C-alpha cells in the first residue's frame, strides 16, 4: 500500500481576465500513511480541491511535489491507472449511461473483460443498496442514489487511494449522514487510504482518523497526527474554527519532518481552552 508525501507543494494560477496570479497553495508539507482516513478542512476557496486535483494528477504543481509510492501522479499518469480514484462534489455521472454502465466506466478503462465488468459493477451497486436500479439512468435517481453510484464507481476499480472532494455536502443531512457512514465502513473495511476534503467540520470530526486544517491560501494550520483528539471533539472543533478565522498556524515550529505539531506545550491531548 503506497504512502503519500507532500513536499513543498505550491500552486498558482494566472487568471484569464486581468492576468493576475492567484496563489491557491502556498506551501504544504505532510505525509499520509497507507490505510489512513484523513480529512482536510478549511475555509471555502482555501485550495483544498486544488490539492485534490494535484493528488489525482489532473494538474501540475507550480513548485514542490506530491509523491505516491515514490512517484508523481501527474508525470506517471498511466502508472496510477486503477490505483487512485475520486468521489466528487456532485455525482458526475455520465447522463447517457445507466447506473450499471456508469460503474463499469473505470473497469472498461482498465481493460477488464465485459463479464468481469458486469459482475464487479453489479456487486458494488448491490452493496450500495441499488440492486433494483442497475438500468436506471441518472435522471431517474435521487441525489443520494446518484452519489451512491459514484461511490460504487470509485470502489469498483479497487483503488489503493480514494480521493473524496466534498462528496456529501450538497445532500440533505439524513442522506449525507447515511452515505458518510457507508463510506467510512467501506473505506476501513477495504483498507483504503482516503483523503477527504470537506468544508463541514462535523463531517471531518465524525469519520476521519486524522484532520489537516488548511489556511488560505493553502498552508498547514493544524495536523492532528499522533494526537488523541477523539476525547475532546468539542475543544478541537473550537480550535479549528479559531485557526480558520485567524488563518494562523497552530505553531510556527516544525518537527523537522514538515509536520506542524498539534500542541505547542507538548501536551498529548487537546483541551477546550485552545492550548
Amino acid at each position, binding site marked *: 500500500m503506497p504512502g503519500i508525501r507532500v513536499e513543498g507543494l505550491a500552486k498558482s494560477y494566472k487568471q484569464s481576465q486581468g492576468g493576475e496570479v492567484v496563489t491557491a497553495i502556498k506551501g504544504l508539507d505532510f505525509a499520509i500513511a497507507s490505510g489512513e482516513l484523513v480529512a482536510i478542512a478549511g475555509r471555502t476557496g482555501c485550495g483544498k480541491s486544488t490539492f485534490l486535483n494535484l493528488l*489525482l494528477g489532473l494538474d501540475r504543481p507550480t513548485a514542490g511535489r506530491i509523491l505516491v509510492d515514490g512517484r508523481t501522479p501527474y508525470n506517471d499518469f498511466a502508472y496510477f491507472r486503477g490505483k487512485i480514484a475520486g468521489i466528487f462534489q456532485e455525482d*458526475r455521472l*455520465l447522463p*447517457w449511461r445507466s447506473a450499471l454502465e456508469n460503474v463499469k466506466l473505470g473497469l472498461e478503462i482498465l481493460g477488464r473483460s465485459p463479464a468481469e465488468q458486469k459482475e464487479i459493477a453489479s456487486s458494488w451497486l448491490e452493496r450500495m443498496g441499488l440492486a433494483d436500479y442497475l438500468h436506471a439512468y441518472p435522471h431517474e435517481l435521487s441525489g443520494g442514489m446518484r452519489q451512491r453510484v459514484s461511490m460504487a464507481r470509485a470502489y469498483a476499480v479497487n483503488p489503493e487511494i480514494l*480521493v473524496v472532494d466534498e462528496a456529501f455536502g450538497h445532500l440533505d443531512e439524513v442522506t449525507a449522514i447515511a452515505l458518510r457512514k457507508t463510506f467510512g465502513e467501506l473505506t476501513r473495511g477495504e483498507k483504503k487510504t482516503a483523503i477527504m476534503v470537506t468544508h463541514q467540520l462535523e463531517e471531518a470530526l465524525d469519520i476521519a482518523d486524522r484532520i489537516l486544517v488548511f489556511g488560505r491560501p493553502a498552508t498547514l494550520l493544524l495536523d492532528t497526527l499522533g494526537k488523541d483528539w477523539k476525547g475532546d471533539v468539542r475543544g478541537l472543533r473550537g480550535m479549528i474554527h479559531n485557526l480558520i478565522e485567524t488563518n494562523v498556524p497552530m505553531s510556527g515550529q516544525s518537527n523537522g519532518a514538515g509536520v506542524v505539531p498539534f500542541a505547542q506545550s507538548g501536551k498529548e491531548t487537546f483541551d477546550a481552552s485552545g492550548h
Partner: protein
Amino acid sequence: MPGSRLEAALHASPSRFGPLRDSLISFGAFAVLWQLASFVLPAFMVPSWQRIASSLAHLHYDNVLVSLARVIVALIASFALGMAGALAMYLSERVERFGMPLVNLVMAVPATCWIVFSILWFKGVELRICFVLVVVCAPIFLVDFLDGMRGVSRDLRSMVWSFRPGLIQYLVKLLFPAITPIVLTSLKINVSQAIRLVTFAELVGAVSGIGYGLSTAQEMFSVAEVFAWTLVLIVILTLAMELLAHMERRLLRWRA
C-alpha cells in the same frame, strides 16, 4: 362581453385533434383552395391537382435516387472532414488558432460562388457537385462539433481523466457520446442544406438529378412538373427530418 370572450379565447383548451390532424386539416383546406383557384386562374400559374398528379406519375424517379446518392456521399465526406477538423482543433490550440480563420473564410463564401468555382475548376459533374456540398457542409459540421467538444463540462472531463484513460478511450467514452445531441442537430441542418444545395447545383450544371428534372420542366414551360418536383423535394425533406427525429429519440432516450 368582450372581456369574457377574450378570456375565453386565451384560456381555450387545446385542440382535441392533435398536431398531426391539425396539419392535415390545414393542408386539406389549402388543397381545396388551390383547386378552386385552378378553375379561375391560368394553368401556368395554378395547375390543377389532376395535372400535378399526372406529372407526378410521369417523373423520372431515378433522378431522385441520383440526387439522394450525391447528398449521402457528400454528407459522409463532410461529416468525416468536419469531425477530423474539429478533433484536430480540440486537441491542438495552435491548429485552432491558424485553422479557424480559414474555416470562417470558407463559410463566408456564398454557395452560388462555390458552384461557379466548381464549374470552372472541375470537369466531372459528380466531382463538382460533391465539392460544392462538402465545402458548404463540412465547415458547419466542424464548427458545431468543436463547439460541442468545448462545451463538455469540466466536471465530467476531470472525472473521466481521474480514471486515466488513453486518448481513444477518452474520445469514445466521453467526448463522442457527449456531443451526440449537437451531432444530430448539425445533421438536421446539413441534410436540409444539402438537399436544397444539390438541387441548385444540378439545376445549373448537371444532366441528372432532381435539379436537372426541374431545369427540364422549366425549359418545357411545364409548371405542373415543377410543382410535382417541388412536392417530391418536400416529401424527401420531410422524410429525412422524420428519420433524424426518430434517430434522436432513440439515441437520446437517456434524456429526462
